[in-house]
């Protein structure tokens, strides 16, 4: 826990819950009669509601993006390195919203919620939601908060896909999109990784076809294994090598199946820790949302054609050692935006951390995002930004 809240932290934050009674028609054909979204906000919404930024989370993220819930918290929110006063996403200027997506397991309606029709836990019966459904539900949250147009919508990985979808679905509702370490659709290899993750969960005898909560069990082995696999793909070979090398648990080989190498211990720990905070059905659902995302399918695979609807400015960022969402995948988006004649800037950041790099405060990456968002701030609130920075001093 922090002895004192750091000065560049948003401080103590309290999540809020928004209820929606207007039915949400999902891409899969099912309808959610009502649902709730849990979210946090940082900074202050200005009078004309022009300074809002929406943060979209990735596979295992949630609404707690910055600050602390309690002075006893060991760690701040998952993107605290980027969100805060004078940070890349500057809460002195901006009003930042982070939510837990529909289907999540951190307070928004999802597989662990009660199905109002059956009065039982949804479990595996929770309908599969897509990136499009998330964007629709995020737009409703924006309506509720009185935000017509976002200054920026920001996301990494699966979060970047949501920002991209926003630019297509609600082009007039965002001034800019920051898309980090993302892709216009998953590669075959990515889908394959997701399928192995799902199979490892489904084949766990404790999964009970997704009704494990009714059976008072948790498929910890399957979910842990899925996370171990995912974790390997989020790191680079170099980063793992630098962190663990062939470091051993014992001085000599034991010639058994216990833990020999430190990396094995690390992965087991990561897998196990994940099962304590994450729901297996949600994990399966999030991987499906990733698999299904392919906005260019509407225009026969022509990404530039679908992106011609966009009106916002774009900043794309990729990382050199990211092989799960490689720079080439970001460049597919960049090239389509160029073809469509859209305003786009692109930074390919030298980084050792692999896909995980998008969560690290790498100076060039933070600087690019900050430069971009500072100019957007000057554009959407030309006079206010000066006043507020005076105030901040």
């Amino acid at each position, binding site marked *: 826990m922090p002895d004192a809240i750091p000065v560049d932290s948003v401080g103590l934050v309290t999540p809020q819950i928004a209820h929606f009674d207007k039915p949400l028609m999902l891409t899969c054909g099912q309808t959610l009669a009502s649902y709730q979204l849990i979210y946090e906000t940082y900074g202050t919404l200005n009078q004309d509601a022009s300074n809002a930024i929406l943060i979209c989370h990735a596979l295992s993220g949630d609404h707690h993006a910055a600050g602390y819930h309690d002075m006893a918290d060991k760690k701040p929110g998952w993107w605290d390195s980027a969100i805060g006063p004078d940070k890349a996403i500057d809460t002195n200027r901006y009003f930042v919203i982070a939510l837990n997506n529909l289907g999540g397991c951190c307070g928004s309606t999802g597989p662990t919620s009660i199905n109002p029709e059956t009065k039982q836990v949804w479990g595996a019966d929770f309908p599969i939601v897509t990136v499009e459904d998330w964007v629709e539900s995020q737009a409703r949250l924006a309506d509720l908060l009185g935000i017509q147009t976002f200054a920026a919508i920001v996301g990494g990985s699966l979060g970047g896909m949501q920002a991209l979808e926003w630019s297509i679905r609600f082009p007039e509702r965002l001034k800019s999109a920051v898309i980090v370490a993302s892709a216009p659709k998953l590669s075959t290899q990515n889908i394959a990784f997701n399928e192995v993750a799902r199979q490892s969960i489904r084949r766990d005898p404790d999964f009970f076809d997704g009704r494990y909560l009714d059976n008072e069990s948790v498929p910890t082995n399957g979910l842990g294994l899925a996370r171990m696999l995912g974790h390997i793909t989020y790191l680079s070979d170099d980063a793992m090598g630098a962190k663990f090398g062939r470091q051993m648990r014992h001085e000599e080989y034991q010639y058994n199946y216990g833990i020999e190498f430190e990396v094995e211990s690390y992965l087991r720990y990561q897998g196990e820790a994940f099962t304590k905070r994450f729901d297996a059905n949600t994990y399966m659902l999030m991987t499906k949302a990733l698999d299904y995302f392919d906005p260019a399918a509407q225009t026969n695979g022509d990404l530039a054609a679908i992106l011609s609807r966009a009106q916002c*400015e774009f*900043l794309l960022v990729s990382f050199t050692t990211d092989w799960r969402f490689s720079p080439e995948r970001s*460049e597919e988006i*960049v*090239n389509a935006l*160029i*073809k469509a*004649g859209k*305003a*786009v*800037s*692109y*930074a*390919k950041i030298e980084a050792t951390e692999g896909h995980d790099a998008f969560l690290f405060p790498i100076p*060039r990456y933070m*600087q*690019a995002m900050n*430069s*971009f968002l*500072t*100019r957007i701030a000057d*554009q959407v609130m030309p006079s206010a930004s000066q006043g507020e920075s005076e105030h901040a001093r």
Partner: protein
Amino acid sequence: MRADLEIIDEWIQPNIRVLDLACGPGELLYHLINHKKVSGYGLEIGSEDLNTCIQKGIPVLEQNIDEGLQNFEDQSFDLVLMTHALQQFRRPDLLIDEMLRIGKECIITFPNFGHWRSRLHLALKGRMPVSEFMPYNWYDTPNIHFFTFQDFERLCHEKDIKVLRWAAVDGHLKDHWWIRSMPNLFSETAIFHISRKA
């Protein structure tokens, strides 16, 4: 704005689509976007320059030109620009081909190594010229191809490239009659506006 950029500015029509290769801090693009309403992108790999462009709102792409420009479609820009950079790339001849594939027209500026001072330097001192404008030693210079005004003209001729117009300026980037009369000897910077012959 740098005087060579002012000359280029006069040659550029408003509202066109521009690609600026090795755009640096984006001085020219910024001017063109804000005063001539062009739309366009800069390509750059210097991290400070990239950041400056992002700060100024110039669309800029981090891309290494030596690794190719295949991601740009044929004739997808009205104009492809390259100021003071051609001498830094591995194959200027192939790069010019690429520029003319992507753009309907190109404007290229480069330092003229045929300038009398360079010639005198080499002739008298017997060492590679180092000048105020090209302040590098032979071993650490980013300028890996030395060529002259005439060399460039000849390349255009060999490649059947049409020179729409040219200008030649001195070290202070000023235009004088004597430079115009003998550009290969008197110009320090050469500026060419080229296209493919129809």
